[in-house]
């Protein structure tokens, strides 16, 4: 075609793109560090499955259709990238072909066939997407002009390429190939036209043009395609379609193992952190670069908010707005953040020498307070940390660690948190439990049950971690007693810590009170390690999660098992026998910290299926997409004054399934759902029971 024009387009198009990207990368580099370059193999695997394989789009039953649509557009794009390179080459070399993909190899033919089909498929998908946005209007979608523009551009890309090739085919086949146009023609594989039916069809559509008209159409389509492509490329980083570029790296760089980035163990003893407000995220620059990349990558698809218990019950936390607002703030302060980071590099660690630099750095502080002005307090405190959002996010964005880090800033630095938490914090400080009941009453529930104390039986094989609810809450005490009955029936060698046990600190940590958490954790770990405890049974998923995933950061390493999994094993090993005599419709509510945080889905179900004569009935929202009870993330200790109540929303779902018994595996879920049933006047008809209670009732 025209090398000069092509060069001009490429220089301008790629030049502007490179500049934007450079700015975006500089901004990320101005944020806090985090190491995401280890375990490359695992990272590649994630990238292949989640990003390239579009697992969370295609994998969700509920959204399979639109998931497949997106996947096809994405895969189509992947295929067409190679085609684009060929087109750029065509700008310089007449009949340009890529090595290996030329007409001499079968690969070349396979590729043109694939490209041909994919262009057709993508075009159909684009039409469907338009239809979906304009007519179906799924509520989670944010209908913006940007979405239409991008869809339009994709359509133009497909059509222009098809018509370019169609016109080329017409010129070759019907007009004697006046420009000596190149086409695949290999004696073994035949002519190009045989392999590209969609293009041939496109050619037929425009067959009415004269030879010159056809040549003009071909040239026009070629340049429209190239210009649209470069425009598209430059448009991507400006809005939510940045994800086209950032998704793959974002998934590659996601945190590994534990469902999300673990809460950072803060060094509270260091005096300077208190003066410099460097605990938690108080300011924009305290986000780490991966959190920044998360913000770049959010596609505003709304899947997160659709599953979020707070959004569903009309609370102000709307995750995609949350992300969008933060991203806008990040962009608005980009220059300042970059300048600030430059200064931060010359800090020496010597307070006196640094005073001047810090003064200069302060100038670059954003005008608005990150929490309170950019993100409203009610928004920040609404989250139950249930992780439903993270589980569905197709690009693996982690909301919860960011929310908790911001809460840390609020609780530790500003003292701004829902005041109801005070009572619970005070209780923790004085008596090691959020109710504030005397610590010496912790083992009162065990009176007369002949439960051994670790102090008297330090060699016990298992420690039964009772937890605050299991110790102090009347209702949950029944669960503890049922569990003791089971353990005794199975002759398990276990003991409890009694008054030496304290709250694990879960709710303190998740409300950002790292100080209180560390206080609890230090004391507990000291006691646990003092007894050389190895194996722990916990009936509370929050305790389980904290003991198992948080305590190792502070030197507590234990094998922790949830009572449902333990009971499941007891049944499997024949250590206890149960009757299949649980009558009536039985359903199960997955606790977030058991399911999504610890991937324990099957054990409780196995146990329940062993008990129930008619088998377990699943709720509409179950397993990985279970709906939170509303108590996690310290919400148990805060009032729920905005919108409708989360526990009632969940209870309604249970009622609608005509359940007679709903099984749970968490003391908070137990309280919340039982309260929900009371609120709906259904507590007489629907029993809320912990798995342990059901098993104890049906021991053979």
């Amino acid at each position, binding site marked *: 075609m025209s090398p000069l024009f092509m060069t001009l387009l490429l220089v301008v198009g790629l030049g502007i793109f490179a500049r934007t990207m450079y700015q975006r990368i500089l901004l990320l580099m101005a944020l806090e560090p985090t190491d995401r370059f280890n375990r490359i193999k695992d990272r590649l695997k994630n990238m292949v499955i989640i990003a390239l394989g579009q697992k969370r789009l295609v994998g969700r039953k509920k959204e399979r259709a639109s998931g497949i649509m997106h996947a096809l557009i994405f895969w189509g794009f992947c295929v067409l990238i190679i085609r684009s390179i060929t087109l750029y080459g065509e700008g310089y070399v007449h009949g340009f072909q890529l090595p290996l993909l030329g007409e001499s190899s079968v690969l070349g033919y396979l590729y043109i066939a694939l490209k041909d089909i994919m262009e057709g498929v993508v075009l159909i998908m684009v039409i469907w997407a338009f239809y979906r946005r304009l007519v179906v209007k799924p509520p989670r979608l944010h209908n913006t002009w940007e979405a239409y523009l991008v869809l339009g551009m994709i359509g133009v890309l497909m059509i222009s390429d098809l018509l370019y090739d169609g016109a080329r085919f017409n010129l070759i086949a019907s007009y004697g190939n006046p420009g000596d146009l190149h086409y695949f023609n290999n004696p073994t594989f035949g002519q190009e036209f045989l392999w590209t039916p969609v293009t041939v069809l496109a050619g037929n559509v425009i067959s009415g043009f004269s030879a010159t008209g056809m040549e003009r159409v071909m040239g026009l389509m070629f340049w429209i395609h190239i210009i649209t492509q470069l425009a598209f490329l430059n448009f991507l980083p400006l809005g939510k379609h940045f994800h086209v570029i950032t998704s793959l790296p974002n998934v590659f760089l996601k945190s590994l193992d534990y469902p999300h980035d673990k809460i950072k163990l803060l060094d509270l003893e260091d005096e300077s952190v*208190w003066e410099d407000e460097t605990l938690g995220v108080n300011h924009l620059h305290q986000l780490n670069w991966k959190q920044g990349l998360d913000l770049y990558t959010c596609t505003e698809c709304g899947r997160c908010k659709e599953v979020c218990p707070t959004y569903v019950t009309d609370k102000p936390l709307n995750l995609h707005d949350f992300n969008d607002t933060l991203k806008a703030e990040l962009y608005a302060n980009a220059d300042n953040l970059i300048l600030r980071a430059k200064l931060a590099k010359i800090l020496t660690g010597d307070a006196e020498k640094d005073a001047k630099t810090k003064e200069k750095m302060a100038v670059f502080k954003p005008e608005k307070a990150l929490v309170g002005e950019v993100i409203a307090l009610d928004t920040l405190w609404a989250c139950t940390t249930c992780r439903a959002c993270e589980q569905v996010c197709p690009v693996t964005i982690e909301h919860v660690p960011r929310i908790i880090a911001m809460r840390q800033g609020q609780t530790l*630095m500003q*003292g701004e948190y829902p005041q109801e938490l*005070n009572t619970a914090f005070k209780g923790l400080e004085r*008596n090691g439990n959020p109710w504030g009941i005397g*610590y010496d009453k912790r083992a009162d529930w065990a009176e007369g049950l002949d439960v051994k104390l670790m102090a008297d039986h330090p060699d016990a094989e298992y420690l039964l971690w009772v937890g605050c609810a299991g110790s102090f809450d009347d209702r949950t005490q029944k669960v503890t007693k049922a569990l003791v009955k089971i353990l005794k029936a199975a002759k398990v060698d276990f003991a409890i810590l009694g008054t030496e046990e304290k709250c694990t600190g879960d709710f303190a940590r998740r409300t950002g009170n790292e100080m209180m958490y560390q206080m609890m954790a230090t004391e507990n770990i000291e006691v646990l390690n003092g007894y050389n405890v190895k194996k722990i049974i916990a009936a509370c998923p929050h305790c389980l999660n904290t003991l198992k995933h948080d305590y190792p950061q502070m030197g507590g390493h234990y094998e922790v098992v949830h009572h449902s999994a333990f009971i499941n094993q007891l049944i499997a090993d024949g250590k206890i026998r149960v009757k299949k005599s649980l009558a009536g419709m039985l359903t199960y509510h997955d606790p977030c910290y058991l399911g999504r945080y610890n991937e324990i889905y099957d054990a409780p179900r196995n146990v329940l299926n062993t008990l129930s004569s008619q088998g377990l009935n699943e709720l509409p929202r179950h397993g990985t997409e279970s709906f939170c009870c509303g108590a996690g993330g310290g919400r148990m200790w805060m009032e729920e004054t905005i919108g409708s109540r989360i526990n009632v929303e969940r209870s309604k779902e249970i009622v609608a399934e005509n359940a007679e018994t709903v099984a749970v595996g968490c003391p908070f879920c137990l309280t919340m759902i039982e309260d929900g049933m009371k609120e709906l006047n259904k507590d007489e008809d629907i029993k809320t029971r912990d798995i342990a209670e059901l098993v104890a009732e049906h021991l053979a």
Partner: protein
Amino acid sequence: MKILTTVKKVVDVELNIHVENGAILDKGLQYVINAWDENAVEAAVQLKESHKADTTLVSLGSGDNTDIIRKCYAMGIDNAIHIDDPALAKADSPTFARVLQKVYEAGDYDLVITGKQAQDTDAGQAGIMLAQFLNIPCVSNVIKIEVTDDSHIQVSRLGDAGTEILDVTLPAVITVSDGINEPRLPAMRGIMMAKKKKINVMDLAGLGTSFEDVGGTAPTSEIVEFMPTEKRKGGQKFEGEPAEVTAKVVDLLVNEAKVL
């Protein structure tokens, strides 16, 4: 305005208190800041915030009170004095009031705010006696303080017949009830920063007095013996038709409990 507040460290009454041979067993006990004094501190800090009052805290006792004083610092108190004298372990209310009098006289205070009583002894005397010794006005059981001008405040107190509103001329002593405010839980940052603040610790001699001077050697009252409280028995639950249940309950109240 200069305010003096007092705090006492008391045994945590949430815990089971074990008594043996007429004395409290120290095992398993823990000590906390007296809840009403926390209200007093909060009230002082609020006046600091609204009227730029200068706040001083005094704690009396034998032994280390650093933890509770730090907490008050973190809540916003400006200065703290701790009178640490082993002799005070056995002191009664008038003695404490005398010590407070000495502290008061050493400063130049306009207002003393104390908790209406201490959670351990529930005596509720020290504040009132202090006013008596100083011969200044005293209002007890206060649930609201408003500053009128430099030398007057208006307070509401919970009286027997309802809320009483009083104009008070300063200097004065007021003792506060828990209805006055919800004490803040100091921000963690405040607690950490408070570590750096100095506490003015002195014994009775340091205060320019002696145990004898404050009446400690001639106590007006003495603790003779501690006795454990009786455990409350569990209640009874009645179920059935309202009419039947009512008849049964009335019968029990008349014949068994003999209260009707």
